[in-house]
């Protein structure tokens, strides 16, 4: 049961041309034991989240702001053991785009899910990259928040501002 299955997506658009586009019923990732029925899993122990703001360029006034949240359920059991993630998703809490001809896009991509637990007590780890990119009349830029979330609850995160490729 240390092989995981993702019944959600491996990539989805979160914001397209300044507008949030998340469909909460389909735009998610999960990590559950391969080949089991959903009914074999217990309810998750809870939902964790991490919030952040992405602020666009502009020396005094930031030209755009996206308030974002990554949330994930953790601690679902299979036959009393393991700690699985039944749902993880990225949502836009608030957003503002000022003048300047901005086109802002945000994407979510899922990496390979591995086991950071044991064979008998599996804990999936899901790498999630949430990337923002923008262009305006003159320029372009962006960056990526690189997350990893664990089925037992914890997460890691760092911002990579060198990830933008025009």
């Amino acid at each position, binding site marked *: 049961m240390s092989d995981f299955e993702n019944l959600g997506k491996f990539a989805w658009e979160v914001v397209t041309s300044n507008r949030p586009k998340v469909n909460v019923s389909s735009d998610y990732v999960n990590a559950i034991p391969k080949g089991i029925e959903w009914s074999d899993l217990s309810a998750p*122990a809870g939902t964790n*989240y991490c919030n*952040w703001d992405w602020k666009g360029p502009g020396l005094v006034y930031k030209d755009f702001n996206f308030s974002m949240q990554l949330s994930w359920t953790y*601690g679902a059991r299979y036959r009393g053991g393991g700690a699985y993630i039944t749902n993880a998703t990225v949502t836009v809490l608030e957003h503002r785009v000022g003048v300047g001809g901005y086109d802002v896009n945000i994407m979510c991509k899922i990496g390979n899910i591995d086991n950071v637990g044991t064979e008998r007590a599996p804990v999936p780890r899901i790498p999630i990259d949430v990337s*923002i990119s923008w262009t305006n009349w*003159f320029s372009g830029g*962006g960056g990526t928040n690189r997350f990893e979330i664990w089925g037992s609850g914890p997460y890691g995160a760092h911002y990579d501002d060198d990830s933008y490729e025009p």
Partner: protein
Amino acid sequence: MADEPELTQGAEGDWVEYLQQWLNSLGFYHGSIDGHFGSVTQEAVAGAQQHYSIGENGTVGPETWQMINLARTANEARVEVAWNDSAVGEVDVPEIGTEEQA
């Protein structure tokens, strides 16, 4: 950015000179950088406003200054991240089958 004045034809001074420099660097103004907002400067302003679709009226207001500010900061533009609150619960991880043994 909040201090830029509204400029119309007939204005003079440092802000006009600054405006002319940026209109020149953006390719819209080819006159002398003399700090005098004449008809050539006004045509350049209108040309830039038309090009960037920000209301072609020849008067330099907030949107036109915003455009110039964007041009000025284009090479140093970065997205900043500000980490906010989080909630992180955690569980122990028993072995599979624990339930049946209990």
